[in-house]
């Protein structure tokens, strides 16, 4: 097996293409923006990536199972609120480490609950995931705004800066957190029965059920895990911005979907891998930081992301056509 084949079978057929894209993007920016190839720039990418990355992981498994989770941002916000509330109850900036620990556990519980409720409605009632998560999103947004009256909550202990801005052996802590989560997700999808079942459910729910797989339990678990991942993202967001506001990260919702599709996840479900999605996230983040150095703002990056996805989809279409013609000849 050649190296290329090894990468294709191990990480997914999209990986070489995305790597090539990444190389091209880096090349172009290093020629046009002089500060692009600097440690500071890659450092800032490394701190920005995890927030979007964790939310994308939360979006990934529902899509693979043939569904969607539109409630990820507000689930993350609610989890952040929970932790913020616990910290504030325990002295705000003076809060010790212990309240942070059980506050985080509580936050994960809130995320899991929101996910489990969605999963249960989807699995046991058979409602469309887009609708269920949309309703959950509207509900959580309302609940969050009701609780915070639309304001910010801030004033957290200093040690949280380590989680948001610290580094271990020069590697940013948020990045470590994200990579650990990505590896866990990869293992979940490729090495566990539930991950296996999630892919099968994404392709054909009924046939999976006929094969003796407990599809309802798996669906509830998928959305619960998605909620837990949102909560991790929410905790990280709290640490990075030293504040919680409902609606924070709202603009990232559709970007996570974009990153999944860019990473070759099948929009109809059944197929998707963590590695190409992580690569897609890196491409998006590098694009954004390069444009930033060239003097463009985040909004131009958003536009470029959208055009980039269209471009990639057109290339995939072209590649498919080309392969078809090759086969015919």
């Amino acid at each position, binding site marked *: 097996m050649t190296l290329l084949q090894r990468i294709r*079978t191990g990480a997914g057929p999209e990986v070489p293409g995305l790597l090539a894209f990444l190389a091209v993007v880096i090349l172009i920016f290093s020629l046009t923006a002089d500060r692009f190839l600097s440690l500071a720039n890659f450092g800032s990418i490394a701190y920005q990536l995890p927030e979007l990355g964790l939310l994308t992981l939360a979006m990934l498994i529902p899509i693979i199972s043939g569904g969607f989770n539109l409630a990820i941002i507000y689930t993350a916000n609610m989890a952040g609120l929970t932790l913020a509330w616990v910290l504030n109850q325990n002295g705000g900036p003076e809060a010790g480490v212990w309240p942070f620990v059980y506050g985080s556990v509580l936050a994960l519980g809130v995320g899991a609950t929101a996910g489990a409720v969605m999963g249960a409605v989807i699995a046991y009632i058979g409602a469309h995931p887009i609708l269920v998560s949309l309703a959950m999103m509207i509900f959580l947004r309302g609940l969050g705004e009701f609780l915070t009256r639309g304001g910010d909550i801030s004033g957290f202990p200093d040690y949280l800066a380590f989680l948001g801005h610290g580094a271990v052996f020069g590697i940013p802590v948020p990045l470590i957190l994200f990579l650990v989560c990505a590896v866990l997700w990869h*293992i979940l999808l*490729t*090495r*566990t*029965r539930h991950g*296996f*079942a999630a*892919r*099968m459910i994404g*392709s*054909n729910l*009924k*046939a*999976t*059920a*006929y*094969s*003796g*797989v*407990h599809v309802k339990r798996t669906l509830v678990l998928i959305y619960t895990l998605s909620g837990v991942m949102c909560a991790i993202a929410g905790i990280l967001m709290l640490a990075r911005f030293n504040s919680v506001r409902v609606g924070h990260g709202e603009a990232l919702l559709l970007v996570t979907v974009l990153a999944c599709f860019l990473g070759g996840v099948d929009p109809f479900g*059944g*197929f998707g891998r963590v590695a190409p999605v992580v690569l897609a996230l890196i491409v998006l983040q590098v694009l954004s930081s390069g444009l930033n150095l060239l003097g463009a703002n985040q909004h131009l990056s958003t536009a470029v992301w959208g055009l980039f996805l269209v471009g990639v989809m057109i290339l995939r279409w072209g590649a498919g056509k080309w392969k078809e013609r090759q*086969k*015919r*000849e």
Partner: protein
Amino acid sequence: MTSAPAIHLRHISKVFGGVKALQDVDFDVGMGEVHCLAGENGCGKSTLIKIITGVYQPEPGAEIEIFGQRYAQITPTVARKAGIAVIWQDLALFAEMTVAENIAFEAVLGNRPRRVRHAEMRRDATAALDRLGVHLDLDARLGTLPIAERQMVAIARALVGEARLIFMDEPTASLTQTETDALLSVVRTLSAQGVTVVFVSHRLAEVLEIANRVTVLRDGRLVGVYLAEGMTQTRLTELMTGKTFDQHVAAQDTAASEPVLEVQGLTRKGEFRDISFALRRGEVLGLTGLIGAGRTELAHVLFGMTRPDAGTVTLDGRPVRFRSNRDAVAAGIAYVSEDRLALGLIQPQSISDNAVLAVLKKITGGAGLLSDDRQEGLVAHWVRELGVKIGKPGDAMNTLSGGNQQKLVLAKWLATQPKVLILDCPTVGVDVGARAGIFRIVRDLAAQGLGILLISDEVTEVHFNADRILHMAGGRIVGEYDPRQTRVEELEAAVYA
């Protein structure tokens, strides 16, 4: 046949990427005739239909005459104008629209927008249904109708388009016997009105019952045209496959072995009642009856998909009560569904993943994680054991032929090491040639001590392959037969009566 023929084709060839799908085929259908086009999957039947309806263009040198008129080229529009309609196996109807809208669908076609004439559409729909002698609620949503009635809608739709020649692609595949009879009588009505009907069907019995003549294709070539009268099923099978099958009764005496599955007074309201039988170890127990007799419903209860209202099921002497099919699988029951495409396999996923789906626990290694080695080993074992022809284990399921797919379904369930294997119409969509291979496996499994419940609506299939036969009708078991003491004709008479 003195008038011009409905279809007169000469030298039809079609090549797809180097593969000759059709080679110099001639095809004639007389006016008002009921003609049958027979052949195995991949013999070129559907390619031929698609050429006549203008979906594909034939290779140069072809001569096409329809209703006495020569055509240099046929497009779908030309074909429709010439009065040709196709009723596809999936019917191509619209589930959310009403019966009237479906029948008179022609009226809303065309790229230039017009006002919809609802009243006119209803009138056309009524007229078409009257011609068929069928009564349906015009305002019912199509999706709420049973398949047989949808079929009538599809035929009526062809009539609204003034079709003089109707192709029917496997029209009886999912109809009950009564429904099939109704359909056949509608076909006769059409024929009497001068409409020509070309039937494509794998159910040989009804082919011979309805058709005037049969055209047989094999491997893209014309085998011959035969009069239906005097033709036997065995002879037709030989013509289609090019092989001779000396079918003989495989039944053996298994009365000595102890029962593995016992069913006592099993009842589910509205589906079947008071079903009692015992399946012995090493026995192939045939269960036949018409569609709608309650066979699949019974299988669903035995497999734990639905729950019975009364009665007991005993497995290996212990009473069992399944809350779901997961319990049934754990207890040692496997079920090969009749709907391989939608329920038996997950078509877009890989062969390897399909094969292990029912035994994920078995490929779980240390630390509770799935092991690639175990998965590869298991897949390789069963592919070898059952002789499944595959490319790579990572290829998508839908790259396999029907017969190989069915073998893989068997492999998937055998991996669960069942005590009882329920086969629900295991040869649907499997070539006649490949069926023998499947039944060889079934025999081997029985010899290894498995109890096998073979459900089928093809009486001959059950007769030649089962050790004992139960006849089910109207939700009850109405007879038991020993294939060694019953002639297949007697059994057919009893079931199709």
